């Protein structure tokens, strides 16, 4: 069971990817995308932690330290994830204003019927 952190990360990864692909609701798609991105944070952070090790502050009584670099990388990735989710939700709001729906099939059906390309902004 030494790899259970990876099993959790990969379960979340696959679940998030499945939601993104299988759901028709645009907000749910973005939630799935967010879960997918978050699973990668776990993939990075889990190996950085050593059981029984401390934060990497040099002191005479400690000999083993956890690797701080993955945390720093993931801090950046979290910021990217937040920006992506915010932009995605903002686009969904605009789509709701333009189409009156956030269900993918209804939106695509509207574009098929009439040429709504310049109907509204």
């Amino acid at each position, binding site marked *: 069971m030494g790899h259970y952190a990876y099993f959790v990360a990969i379960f979340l*990864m696959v679940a998030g*990817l499945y939601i*993104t692909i299988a759901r028709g609701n*645009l907000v749910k*798609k*973005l939630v799935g*995308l967010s879960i*997918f*991105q978050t699973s*990668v944070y776990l*993939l*990075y952070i889990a*190996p950085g932690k050593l059981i029984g090790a401390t934060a990497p502050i040099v002191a005479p009584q400690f000999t083993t330290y956890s690797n701080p670099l*993955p945390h720093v*990388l993931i801090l*950046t*990735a979290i910021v*990217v994830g937040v*920006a*992506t989710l915010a*932009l*995605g939700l903002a*686009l*969904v709001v*605009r*789509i709701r204003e*333009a*189409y009156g729906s956030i269900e993918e099939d209804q*939106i695509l059906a509207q*574009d098929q019927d009439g040429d*709504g*390309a*310049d*109907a*509204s*902004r």
Partner: protein
Amino acid sequence: MVDHLPALQVVVPLMSAPVIVLLRRPAIAWLVATAACFAAFAIAVTLALTVAESGTVSYAIGSWEPPWGIEYRVDALSAFMLVLVAGTAALVMPYARRSVAAEVPEHQAYLFYAMYCLCVAGLLGMTITGDVFNVFVFLEISSLSTYVLIALGRGRRALLAALQYLIVGTIGATFYVIGIGLLYLVTGSLNFVDIAVQLEGVTEKRPVLAALAFITVGLGLKLALFPLHQWLPNAYAYAPSVVTTFLAATATKVSVYVLVRFYFLVFAPLQALEGVPVGAVLVALSAAAILAMSLVAVFQPDLKRMFAYSSVAQIGYITLGLGVANEAALTGSLAHLVNHGVTKCALFLLVGGIVVRGGDTSFASLAGLGRRMPWTSFGIVIAGLSLIGVPATAGFTSKWYLIAGAVEQGSWWIVALLVAGSLIAVAYVWRFVEVAYLAPAPAGAAVHEPPWSMRIPQAVAVALCVVLGLFTAFNVGYARRAVDLLLGGSQ
């Protein structure tokens, strides 16, 4: 000052974005963005000349020495790409003022220019950095700004295209992060050069193979490798013309460049990956892209969409060369990065001119365009010849090297495929010729070309399609030097 050029290459466009947001007035925003893009181009040319003269330039950000700190690395390959990206950015800017005024609401124009500068900064950053995680950060800077730029397009379909691209693009970027995460777990390094060194001693095959797979799929999504290209036609068709032009010429190409770096400088020298059919898979997908996407392009009802599908096919030519991976084929691939970039830049600039004057690019409304916009139509035909790969145009030189590479490998079916792809390109370019020159113009149509500020960049781009075909010192010369670097690393 000169020592810090690699950092300034990214910082100048990056910092001009907040300045533009503060200034807000469309005319001033345009001026700042233009100045930033031309400055970036000047820096890129200076760096390219320095590299040609004295070899690779390495710059340690914040004086933290690589491999611990982030390294900016300008070698023969990245200098080549920097000139392409910054050059396109600068060429498009004079054109952008009228085109953006026609297609983007005035109160949003400053946001457009701010996002454009961020996108340029992101792509330049991806090119210049020597750190794999830094590539991800710049990839996301350029991607997020691209989603906004596409959403600024006219009509509500642009919003849907932007969201579609956001979802696919984020999946791609996250796959890339998983890939480099696995490489980091194996090597403990994030520097391209250092990863390659550390991997030499690695005997555990599985994580490296998984990393290769994740990076290939992730970047494949970003570069629209068939069959991961579904986002591209909508995004190109509904985005403002300036955005389509810039993206078609640079964004997918930079992702190809990152893939090239991984394949040839990190993975190719590895003993652990011997026998993994990366090249064969790439060749198969590229062959499918060239045939299927060229055929789909023939049946598009809209000129902009047609060229979007043709872009996916042309990316197939580039990845085909990477799959064949001998010296001639790689030279062809890298030269095609520039040649196709220039050709598509010219085509979308010309299509943007039609949008400014007529607003519609469907074939039905292009009837008799040869009489209404003679110069524009003529330009599309010349650039179209380069797309086909007629001798004395840019497209010919790269296809020539690709064919030479295929012959050298003895793969005659690839030669047949390349010729077939070119013949299908004749079919779709001919569709334009037929509509523009042979169909009667609607009654009362007068000659109405786009304004001069747009015609000059168009003329420069079309001229480059021919000049790069006749004088191959820039594209093929640089491609050769880059290939020496790539293949030298594997020996």
